[in-house]
């Protein structure tokens, strides 16, 4: 379907966003000697091997002990280190929520919690590993910044950017090979939404892997005479409310798209903003109060209603409610 569409963004290569993290970490480590890496027995999965090889004196294997890893990272910040912890999103959040809450967020520590294999698209491992609640847990924590970049390039840029930002950050990325469609030279601005495609009828607010699905959905809608604006909300907290309100002031309705529960995710962040300042119809593309299951990433996005076709359907539905 993509080949016959007139897409506003294109790709020639696919790569996993976790590789963007690994490459970004290496670059951040070269820029700043205070950057340190910690990993709980998932160096290969997190693509932290290159950093470990180049900076063995700044890399700490913690074994399968994520709670301890979060505490050690918090302790390392005290004399100015910038620790990047690496494990799966599930073990980066739910498993260690209290450690993050007390030793990192409440204590205001400069830890970068880097979480791979987020969402459904880790695929065949199934629901034990497919966390769909992590953004909600993390955005509830005072002081925490929450970032969910959309492709390899944006993940790499975000990784470099958070090393230069003082404060706790949750960086969410994933496992599947995914289109690379953003500029490799982009400057990542934390908290600044990116208007990727201008439109007038409906705004699609997307985050993470589903930004690509939103790009595809925009082309489909355009081919049917509907003008959609696509905004990449890579930073879910702090939320760029101004960008959201400016766009909806023009389009009058919104669709949110995320690989996460919409309860606690981008969906409720956007809905809360609109409810307070400019009540407008919103439709959610996200997981609705269920766990995932085994399958391929493509199959899972289809079954759970998270692909471009679902965004198109949600856009038509919300347009009818204007």
């Amino acid at each position, binding site marked *: 379907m993509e080949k016959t569409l007139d897409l506003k963004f294109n790709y020639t290569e696919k790569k996993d966003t976790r590789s963007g993290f690994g490459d970004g970490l290496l670059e951040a480590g070269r820029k700043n000697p205070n950057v*340190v890496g910690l990993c709980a027995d998932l160096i290969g999965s997190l693509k932290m091997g290159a950093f470990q090889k180049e900076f063995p*004196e*700044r890399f*700490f294997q*913690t*074994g399968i*002990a994520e*709670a*301890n*890893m*979060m*505490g*050690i*990272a*918090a*302790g*390392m*910040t*005290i*004399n*100015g*280190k910038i*620790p990047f912890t690496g494990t799966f999103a599930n073990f980066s959040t739910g498993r260690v929520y*209290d*450690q993050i*809450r*007390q*030793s990192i967020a*409440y*204590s*205001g*520590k400069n830890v970068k919690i880097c979480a791979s294999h987020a969402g459904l698209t880790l695929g065949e491992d199934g629901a034990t590993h497919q966390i769909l609640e992590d953004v909600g847990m993390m955005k509830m924590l005072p002081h925490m910044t929450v970032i969910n970049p959309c492709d390899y390039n944006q993940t790499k840029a975000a990784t470099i950017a958070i090393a230069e930002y003082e404060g706790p950050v949750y960086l969410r990325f994933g496992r599947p090979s995914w289109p690379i469609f953003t500029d490799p030279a982009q400057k990542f601005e934390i908290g600044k939404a990116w208007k990727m495609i201008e439109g007038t009828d409906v705004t699609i607010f997307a985050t993470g892997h589903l930004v690509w699905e939103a790009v595809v959905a925009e082309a489909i809608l355009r081919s049917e005479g509907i003008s959609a604006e696509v905004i990449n909300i890579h930073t879910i907290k702090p939320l760029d409310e101004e960008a959201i309100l400016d766009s909806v002031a023009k389009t009058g309705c919104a669709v949110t798209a995320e690989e996460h529960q919409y309860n606690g995710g981008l969906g409720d962040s956007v809905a809360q903003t609109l409810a307070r300042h400019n009540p407008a119809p919103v439709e959610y593309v996200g997981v609705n109060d269920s766990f995932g299951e085994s399958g391929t990433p493509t199959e899972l996005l289809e079954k759970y209603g998270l692909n471009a076709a679902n965004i198109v359907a949600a856009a038509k539905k919300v347009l009818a409610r204007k």
Partner: protein
Amino acid sequence: MEKKSIEQLESVASQVRRDILRMVHAVQSGHPGASLGCTEFFVALYFDQLNHDSNFKMEGKGEDLFFLSNGHISPVWYSVLSRSGYFSPEEMDTFRKLNSRLQGHPATEEGLPGIRIASGSLGQGMSVAIGAAQAKKIDGDGSTVYVLMGDGEQEEGQVWEAAMYAAHWKVDNLIATIDLNRQQIDGPTAEIMDLIDLRAKYESFGWEVIDTLQGNDMKSVVEGLEKAKSLSGKGKPVMNLLHTEMGFGVDFMVGTHKWHGIAPSDEQLANALGQLPETIGDF
């Protein structure tokens, strides 16, 4: 700071115990039992052992660092911090009150000098101390990092993750102490969750372990900390098992878990203060 004699340290300890009781009494809230039991340890650490600067800097470069993992004994820490110059003793009057920097459990949010991490939810402090110790090693900073935990706290799984890690990574600039008072909220640890043999546990995890058998005798506590220091830097983290009595210094509070989190009444406070000379001056 001029080196204090054991008698001078004991004199400070008497004032610290008065501070603990008066803080907890004033708000009828807080944890006097283990605060009193750890008074010798805190006084020996801050007035004799630690190389520290009361002109507080979070980074603490070139300084020894102390972390309190069992944060509920905040009264003893607040007293010792203020008595060693981190903040004015008058501020102890705000303990646990609205808009205070002296939160129920220690926190960094309000910027109280001397506190480097929040604690209270148990089991986390040793991990933090290990991270701080490793960061010092990266920087070639030869200072020592200290952490205090409770014995009931040893029931938390994260403690053992940290114990394993510290030995594996040879974090030998870490001196951990366990307040071995054999009590926890619901009763004696032997009945609630038997710790059996902490020395054997830590030794088998790869630690150097010492016992300070008289944890409420100032000379013994100082000697224990000196011995622990002498064993550091030799490839192993060091554990100091500090045998204390909860409520030590007040005859009706000693040796029971009942004063874990209970404040004394007006009469009880007067009785207790009668047993503890005012040596530096009440806040």
